[in-house]
């Protein structure tokens, strides 16, 4: 669907609060802009984002057209065990893109 940049620290201490950064390439067309023909360009946005850590919800967001193009999020997560962090984005057409990252907890 789109290119995503994900930044999860490769290593963390047990119980440490780490910062996770994600950015995905998406125009986030608002539906309020006019094209050259004077008609409104159809709305096309990512409507939700979710992050899970070994299946447990960490952070999620419901998005509206007021989110900038190429939605970026930085948020925190408690590094409790080595595992897989999963990120998913869902657009207006209910298409979902899923990406994962690994974190090693000592």
């Amino acid at each position, binding site marked *: 669907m789109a290119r995503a940049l994900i930044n999860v620290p490769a290593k963390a201490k047990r119980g440490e609060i780490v910062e996770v950064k994600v950015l995905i390439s998406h125009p986030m067309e*608002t539906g*309020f802009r006019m094209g050259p023909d004077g008609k409104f360009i159809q709305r096309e946005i990512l409507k939700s984002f979710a992050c899970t850590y070994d299946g447990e919800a960490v952070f999620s*967001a*419901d998005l509206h057209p007021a*989110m*900038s193009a190429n939605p970026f*999020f930085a*948020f925190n997560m408690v590094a409790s065990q080595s595992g897989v962090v999963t990120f998913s984005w869902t657009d207006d057409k209910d298409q979902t893109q899923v990406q994962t990252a690994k974190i090693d907890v000592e």
Partner: protein
Amino acid sequence: MRDDMHTTPGATRRAVLTGAAASAALIAAAPYAWSTTAEMDAAIKAFTGGAPMKEGGVKVDIPILLESGHSVPTIVSVESPMTAADHVKTVALFNEKNPLPQVAEFHFTPKSGRAWVSTRIRLSDSQRVVAVAKMSDDSFRMGWIEVIVTLPACAEEPR
């Protein structure tokens, strides 16, 4: 007075906003319905279900003077221990003058560690941005910031 401002729309708020009167006149001339303060109030009420909000503990961090409204760095944080018993469930972000009053809703869990998020939003004009936090005991807290935008998002549209 601040508390009244968010619960009872009317003359009090208008008095507060007289400083923004000039830009409000511009908005009235826009080709479609821009969200007004009343619309933001309605959106906040839809989120809280009309429950009372306490001001404080919620911080919206945006540079006060913005060159462009297309990508506004925004940090929202809520003071909370983020334990299973006492944490922030959701933080909803609202604005006054964009075409839609909602910006985003952020959902946290105790796994988040901190009720903190940094993101980028669009602002169509100088306006107030409000964050409302829903706590785990279903109480609501709010915080807000007033920002000046010199080049609004949607600037390419006819006005």
